[in-house]
């Protein structure tokens, strides 16, 4: 149990078993043809979303050198929903970008990248990075986007509101399958692109000064990674909607469980944990609660409980 590799293998098999249970539960030869492809699509969406959320949270914590920040705390997913609301508010749900999911998706990703570039210029390029200021601005912007979105949602036609509402809540029963293929392509591209950066993460977690001292082109790496984060958050939010707690939860769970600083292990384990949490959560929602609750509730509940546990344990350690 001591070796990170062993732990990773355990997580891998746990994820595989959960996926198998999810795929095969109550499958009979008669309904297999109907059930399996639909479940497979859910699983693909889960793997993509879970992977994106875990990866972006881990990378974001590394470049900000902070274990509480996640992209959703900075309001990146509320920005995504804000963009959706704006488009519907000004152009209606029948316009071209809303009708064609892929165009809508690409436009939103573009705006998200723009936003993260602004974030970069405002905070990361400056000499004294003030993490509290970044956090404060993130929270303010996040609630700003949310309030503005809900204000616009009040004003629009109820039928159009339904379309916005559909995007507002995380749900795996309502996966945006139209963009699944595009998401897979984008994520694959991003993964290939970011592989070359992965060796930098361990050093970057030593802090900006040490990273520069050890020869990392810090500004370039941070800029690139912020854009990658913006793209992947867009993919996750567009596919299933905002799952606020998940990133924070799995990244910290991964750190606790793996007890290593090596990002190869940390990233892999947080992605696996994310998949386990989502598939497990979905099983509970579908089989235990028979759809009477949503996966966000389950994840926020488990996540919250875990954090209280962490707090209590830390208090004892003092």
């Amino acid at each position: 149990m001591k070796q990170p590799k062993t732990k990773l293998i355990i997580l891998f098999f746990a994820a595989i078993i959960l996926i198998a249970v999810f795929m095969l539960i109550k499958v009979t030869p008669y309904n297999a043809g109907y059930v399996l492809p639909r479940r497979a699509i859910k699983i693909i969406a889960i793997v993509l979303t879970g992977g994106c959320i875990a990866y972006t949270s881990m990378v974001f914590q590394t470049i900000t050198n902070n274990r509480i920040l996640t992209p959703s705390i900075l309001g990146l997913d509320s920005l995504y929903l804000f963009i959706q609301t704006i488009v519907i508010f000004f152009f209606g749900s029948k316009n071209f970008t809303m009708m064609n999911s892929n165009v809508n998706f690409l436009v939103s990703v573009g705006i998200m990248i723009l936003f993260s570039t602004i974030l970069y210029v405002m905070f990361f390029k400056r000499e004294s990075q003030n993490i509290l200021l970044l956090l404060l601005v993130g929270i303010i912007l996040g609630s700003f986007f949310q309030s503005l979105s809900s204000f616009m949602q009040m004003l629009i036609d109820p039928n159009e509101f339904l379309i916005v509402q559909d995007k507002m809540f995380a749900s795996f029963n309502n996966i945006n399958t139209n963009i699944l293929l595009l998401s897979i392509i984008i994520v694959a591209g991003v993964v290939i692109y970011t592989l070359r950066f992965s060796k930098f993460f361990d050093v970057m977690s030593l802090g900006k000064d040490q990273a520069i001292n050890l020869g990392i082109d810090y500004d370039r790496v941070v800029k690139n990674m912020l854009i990658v984060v913006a793209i992947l958050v867009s993919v996750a939010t567009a596919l299933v909607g905002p799952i606020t707690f998940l990133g924070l939860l799995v990244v910290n769970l991964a750190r606790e469980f793996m007890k290593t600083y090596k990002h190869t292990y940390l990233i892999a384990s947080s992605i696996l944990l994310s998949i386990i949490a989502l598939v497990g959560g979905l099983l509970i929602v579908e089989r235990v609660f028979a759809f009477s609750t949503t996966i966000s509730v389950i994840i926020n509940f488990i996540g919250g409980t875990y954090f209280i546990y962490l707090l209590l344990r830390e208090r004892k350690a003092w």
Partner: protein
Amino acid sequence: MVKVKNVSKQFNGKNVLENVSLSIEKGKITSFIGPNGAGKSTLLSVISRLTKADSGEVLIDGVDINKEKSNVLAKKISILKQSNHINLRLTVKELVGFGRFPYSQGKLTKEDEQFVDEAIKYMELDSIQHKFLDELSGGQKQRAYIAMVIAQDTDYILLDEPLNNLDMKHSVQIMKVLRRLVDELGKTVVIVIHDINFASVYSDNIVALKNGVIVNDGSAKSIINSQILEDIYEMEIPIQEINNQKICVYFA
């Protein structure tokens, strides 16, 4: 040789460095001294590319640091800042291993391992090399960080207040190590230091800064002079010769 040419730097409209020019001799220990806020640490940060100067240039062995690849510079010059808060759970050996990143990009080769072991031995960390950093005392931590810099194996080593918060024993130990780095391995060491007696006893050259300007620059013997020090620190600093070392007696 490190050459600093007309470097200026402003923070929030205040001049921290004003038109600073300086040459740092190779194979010597150079100490930056001066009152708080004189710009010593900023100058060190500019030389090590952690802070970008507003104007002027820094040449290391004739190469402009802004035109050289960061990874190439990391094999030439290393810096250790005074506050090192790392929230990772690292052992001493793992930390020292990070010093090899410019060479190995994270995958330690046999040669890297050898450098790491030597650096650990050099700083006498053998017995605690598998301990976690958060289990160590301030002095041990500081030695571990210096071991990391030694493993980085650069010609130029810059240290920002390496004696900060250390007791006399550890201070002397670290200064002796720096002396050995220069005398035995031919490194060039530049330190920011507040204790002028350590500067007097261990350094070859002293650069005195005040209000962002270099007010004096020369051999340690010539700078440790009552009149010069009084100009720098605005207080009377009598100097005694004890065992052939110039010691400032400014305590009363």
